[in-house]
């Protein structure tokens, strides 16, 4: 399908967009906390990956590599911490915890647990060895668990 899309086949291009657009948008939105910016990054990433003339990696790897590179260069807006207990939600809790992580930890967490990529694919996307990806993921999860424990009350996480 990727090869066919490379030859500008209309149907294959639509199928690739349909298959990857929602998960790429979720990654961008969870990173940026802004719908318009997330859409813009998504559109630019797809335009860039389809414009590549001689792709040397699978479509998914190239797409997430472009998105990751873009997100790492984007300033993450400060997450408003709502103190009122009624306004708390698990989504807000996750946003706050994510914002507290370092970008490389946040990225690998989202690629693994949100986008569902395998460790081998993540290693290709981040262009690091698999063992490095394993250890980075482990440290990221530990940091996130610490942040979740720090920002949540026993009632938040059921």
């Amino acid at each position: 399908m990727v090869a066919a899309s490379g030859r500008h086949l209309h149907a294959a291009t639509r199928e690739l967009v349909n298959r990857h657009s929602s998960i790429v948008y979720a990654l961008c939105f969870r990173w940026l906390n802004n719908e318009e910016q997330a859409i813009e990054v998504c559109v630019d990433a797809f335009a860039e990956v389809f414009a590549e003339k001689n792709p040397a990696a699978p479509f998914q790897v190239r797409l997430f590599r472009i998105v990751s590179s873009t997100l790492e260069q984007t300033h993450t807006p400060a997450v408003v911490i709502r103190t009122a207990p009624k306004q708390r939600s698990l989504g807000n809790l996750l946003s706050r915890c994510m914002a507290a992580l370092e970008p490389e930890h946040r990225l690998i967490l989202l690629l693994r647990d949100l986008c569902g990529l395998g460790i081998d694919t993540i290693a290709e996307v981040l262009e690091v060895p698999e063992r490095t990806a394993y250890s980075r993921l482990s440290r990221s999860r530990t940091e996130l668990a610490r942040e979740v424990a720090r920002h949540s009350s026993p009632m938040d996480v059921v």
Partner: protein
Amino acid sequence: MDDFFAAMRLSALLDNTLDADEKVLVEQAIRESPRLRVQYSRMMTAVELVRSQGNADPPEILEQKILDRLRSDGTLKAPWSKHLPKRQTLLIAGAVVAGVSLAWWSWPRTPQTAVSPLPEEEPLEQALAPPVNLKESPVLPTAPPEVVRMKRKPAPTKKPSFKPAPITKPAPTSAPTPVSNPTRTPPKPIRGSVPQWEDEAEELPIPAVEMGSGITRLRLFPTETDALYELDNWASQQGITLDTPPRTLSTEDNLARLELTLTGGQIVDLLNTLERLGPLHQVEPPDAHLSETASVPVEIEVQYQP
């Protein structure tokens, strides 16, 4: 297993990517260490939080925006689209094709010639007849001119005479009597003006003759009474013997018939002679048989003025 190494493998335990031996050791360490148990529980909660709350539904316009962007960038094109000519070229080609089609449809067409029916099976006698020697007879091989004539009833009150007999003029209001023979070709005036009385003469019973046998039939409406003698003299000068001598001709109803066999050149001379004698009609065209050397049977009907 040491707690440090076990903690480093909690993430792999969550992903279920550990070997069976390592998994047993890590699970045993978690059971033995309360600190590891809390750490593993928190990590599991965090991962579940990301998996359950991290997803975001994309807006409906996202996919369309991506496709619009690809279309504007020229990415979303069919592979053969780059081989297509430009729009202006297509329009010109379409106009040319339409013009050619219109001209083709509006061009006048020649009518299709009807397919002639298959010839009927010839009789056995003709099929067994010897072949025609074309060198000896350059005339198209045709059947011998068998002239089948209907015998006219002689007028009951008249006797054979050279004197023109008066014809009862029909009433002018009566319709012309139709010709008895439907295959008879109406006479065509070729030289001279048709006299008025010719129409009246046409109403007389004209002997039926077989058409299409190659006979040149001429009808003369002489202005002089000695036309038959003039014809006899002309035949004598040409060295032609009349098959039916004029003096033996019956002139009933002021009609005489002469039969001759002429060449094409003699026919031309005969026509010039007949022209001097009066208006002339050609009953049946024999153009296909006209030749300078070939002989053609000629039949002359001399219709005297009543």
